[in-house]
């Protein structure tokens, strides 16, 4: 089961609707990087509103996606992280400090523009 990636001008938009298992997450990482390569996208918004559980491994994969995309010239913003997920990650000591975040898709696009202007 692959996570669909939508294109909007220079941006790629992803809304993760399912419980993320390891395989799906790794596949997603690969798909996204390929898509960035194909489309020359400069910005990516990954919305996690429907994701209820993020453990340390998935958090690492998401963090890596941000770094890898950056290397390929695209900025990534994570949006919609749920309170339960945020609190769990903080308890685990995972802060994802280098990952830009925003409340929702709208704010995410605004943030992307800010990031790209810098």
């Amino acid at each position: 089961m692959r996570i669909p990636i939508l294109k909007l001008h220079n941006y790629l938009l992803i809304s993760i609707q399912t419980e993320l298992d390891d395989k799906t997450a790794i596949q997603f990482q690969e798909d996204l990087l390929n898509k960035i390569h194909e489309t020359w996208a400069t910005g990516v918004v990954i919305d996690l509103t429907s994701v209820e559980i993020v453990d340390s491994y998935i958090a690492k994969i998401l963090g890596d996606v941000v770094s890898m995309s950056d290397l390929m010239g695209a900025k990534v913003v994570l949006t919609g992280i749920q309170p339960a997920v945020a609190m769990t990650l903080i308890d685990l000591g995972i802060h994802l400090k280098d990952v830009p975040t925003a409340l929702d898709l709208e704010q995410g696009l605004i943030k992307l523009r800010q990031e790209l202007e810098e």
Partner: protein
Amino acid sequence: MMSKHFQSCIPIQKEWDIVAARQQGRDIAKKIGFGSVDQARIATAISELARNIYLYANKGQICFDYLEDMEHKGIKILALDEGPGISDISKVMEDGYTTSGGLGAGLPGIKRLMDHFDIDSEEGKGTEVIIEKWLR
């Protein structure tokens, strides 16, 4: 064998079992009455434990049980494996220690998510972790 005292167990052998275990844990937590935040904490703790089993021991199981005393209800989870075991438990309980090279939240993180945490391990024999969370 400890697991006989537990209500239900899920074997951890394939990668997908990690998801099965945490979903089961989440369902049980919901049934007991835990709120969404605690459900996430419990499910994530189980995911971490199951992943440890999958990565280091190849085979093991996650068992669940209901806790109940005079005033409170709770959930009890056992993570059991016959893997290589841990030689120095105190080192593993140090914050920041990780062997898999990843973010590896590790055992101290799991401890912070729950109310009780107990670990028993013998090199060459295996590891047993018991975690509990009580409904406030």
